[in-house]
């Protein structure tokens, strides 16, 4: 059974059809890169999978570990192991980063019928993850993303992922707006989290992240559909030739 199976997915935003029959299968342990030009529907895919309001699915199915993912509320998807690293992480003044993360962590455990962590247990876990992610604990004492630099916000997303340990991680343009050092840091974090039980969907416009997080599969998303799939060499081809002329064989 595939971990994630998307079949013929159609989705609308504000009445405009963005996804037009997207199909994709992802297995545990795999890293898939979704590449494509602006406006192809990359971010829409991430938002539909995580359940954001305003995205209307008009046709198709998304099956996650055998269940209908689209029928779940966003928080239930998270508890089931789906994680979206935001392209634009939201600043939440007044909510402490650690407090927020513990609330999320425990809410997920509660939803799965697992015992919640007390603050000591959680702190211990957080310390371990900080070490693995090579993140300063200073981030923990601040409000969620408030006043964070672009790089800090993206690293905070990856840190949250490390703590929440999702099965399916969707990274929405996590590389955008990062300088090369920040990009390496984020990539190191992602690589540290790769495991046979976990799958990644990396949505990106550029090939450069894939130099550091080497994908098993690369898909080209254009005009709401996957128009070409291949291995990492496809990303290099795109880098060389651009998105123009892609999927000519598929277009009607």
């Amino acid at each position, binding site marked *: 059974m595939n971990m994630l199976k998307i079949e013929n997915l159609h989705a609308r935003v504000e009445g405009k059809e963005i996804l037009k029959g997207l199909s994709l299968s992802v297995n545990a342990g795999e890293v898939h890169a979704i590449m494509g030009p602006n406006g192809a529907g990359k971010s829409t895919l991430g938002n539909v999978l995580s359940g954001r309001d305003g995205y209307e699915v008009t046709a198709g199915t998304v099956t996650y570990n055998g269940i209908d993912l689209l029928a779940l509320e966003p928080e239930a998807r998270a508890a089931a192991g789906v994680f979206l690293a935001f392209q634009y*992480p*939201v600043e939440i003044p007044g909510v402490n980063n650690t407090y*927020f993360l513990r609330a999320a962590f425990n809410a997920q455990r509660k939803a799965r019928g697992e015992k919640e962590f007390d603050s000591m247990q959680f702190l211990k876990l957080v310390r371990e993850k900080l070490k693995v992610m090579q993140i300063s604990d200073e981030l923990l004492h601040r409000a969620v993303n408030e006043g964070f630099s672009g790089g800090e916000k993206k690293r905070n997303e990856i840190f949250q992922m490390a703590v929440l340990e999702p099965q399916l991680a969707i990274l929405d343009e996590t590389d955008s707006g990062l300088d090369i050092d920040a990009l390496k840091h984020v990539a190191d974090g992602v690589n540290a989290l790769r495991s046979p039980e976990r799958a990644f969907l990396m949505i990106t416009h550029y090939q450069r992240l894939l130099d550091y997080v080497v994908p098993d599969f690369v898909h080209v998303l254009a005009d709401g559909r996957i128009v070409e799939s291949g291995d990492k060499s496809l990303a290099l081809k795109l880098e060389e030739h651009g998105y123009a002329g892609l999927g000519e064989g598929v277009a009607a």
Partner: protein
Amino acid sequence: MSQPAPLPLVESLLDVPLPASGIAWLDAARHESRAAFAAAGLPDTRVEAWKYTALRALGQRHFARGDAAAASRAIAASTFALPGVDGPRLVFVNGVFRADLSALDVLPAGLTLQPLSQALHDDAEPLRFVLSRPALIDDAREAGDAFTRINAASAVDGVMLRVAAGMKLAAPVQLVFVGAAADVELAWHLRNVIELGEGAELNLIEQHVSDAAPAQLATVVSDIELREGARLQHTVLQNVAVATSLIRRSSVRLHARAHATLHVLELGGALVRHDLRAELVGDGARFDTRGLFMPHGRQHIDTQLAIRHQALNTTSTSTWRGVANDRARGVFRGAIVVAPGADGSDASLSNKNLLLSPGAEIDTKPELEIYADEVKAAHGATVGQLDERSLFYLRSRGIPLAEARALLTAAFCRAVLDDLPSEALREHLSGLLVAQLPA
């Protein structure tokens, strides 16, 4: 045009003999204030400052004055206990000074803290100017100051607090105004006079608390004066019972380089009105306010903030938030005037509001008038719901919708406490306001 019959409230407030102090100027001022109240009555919503606060229902009520048992009503110390606050304290119950509940035994050097009645008895003359003023405030035919007038006519006691020049008091001074349940619906009035001498420093905590029914009407009028370079940290916690209507007027006057910081939490009450006025009359004076009003049920909480910059390089910052639930109503008016000559002044005002239910309402009105040069000013007000992007972010991490809402609402409220220096007090107040949020 024939005069309409006076409202029951006006009648009941006038239906008591004027207190006689034996001090000629004070009795004259009381007489004058009472006459002005009788002539002008209560403001209606055509008066701009009362546009969103109708007194129709309150005007039909009848309150008795004077609680003969006020001196002996049992009040638990837990009513006003605050963490980390164990200094000088002045307590009033139903408008009556309670020595037994107060803590005046060991006052630090340089602090005068006593009932106003005592101060008047000892030496009334220094209070003459401030206590003669209310009757002169506005046009006698203008009803907007009705409660200030009836307070000036009726209040026989209140707080007299004076910090001598140069005295820096570390321990917080606590002022407690308790409304205790009586057999009848009571009205009571208190008049406070607070002065900080040159370079004096004071940490002041003002609490308004009360038992449950029966209903009460209380008026509290405070004058606060900061001499040159004085610093005041003032925290106001208003958490009276939902049957209590509380009308306050606080006037703060700041001389050169004086700095007052006010944190105001408005949690309780039926009809609550606070006129908060600051005058920055000395160069370099600074006035910072942080406030939160959280009406729920059928509460009505109205704050009228008015700041006048009258001197060079004066600064004011005002950060106010409102959260209304159920069928409650919040009103905020923030009026800033930078007067001619107050060049180089800096005034910022922000009022953000959250509506937690479709039946709730908040009316906010920022006003800015600038008559000086090289002034920096910013003001803004919003009324809305919780940010959808933030809600989704929390939910995407697994936090259920109701919990996400509660978390964001609490954070929105707590922001006004951020720069409160005492962590213990901040935690306590934060707990109080979170407790008021819907579960």
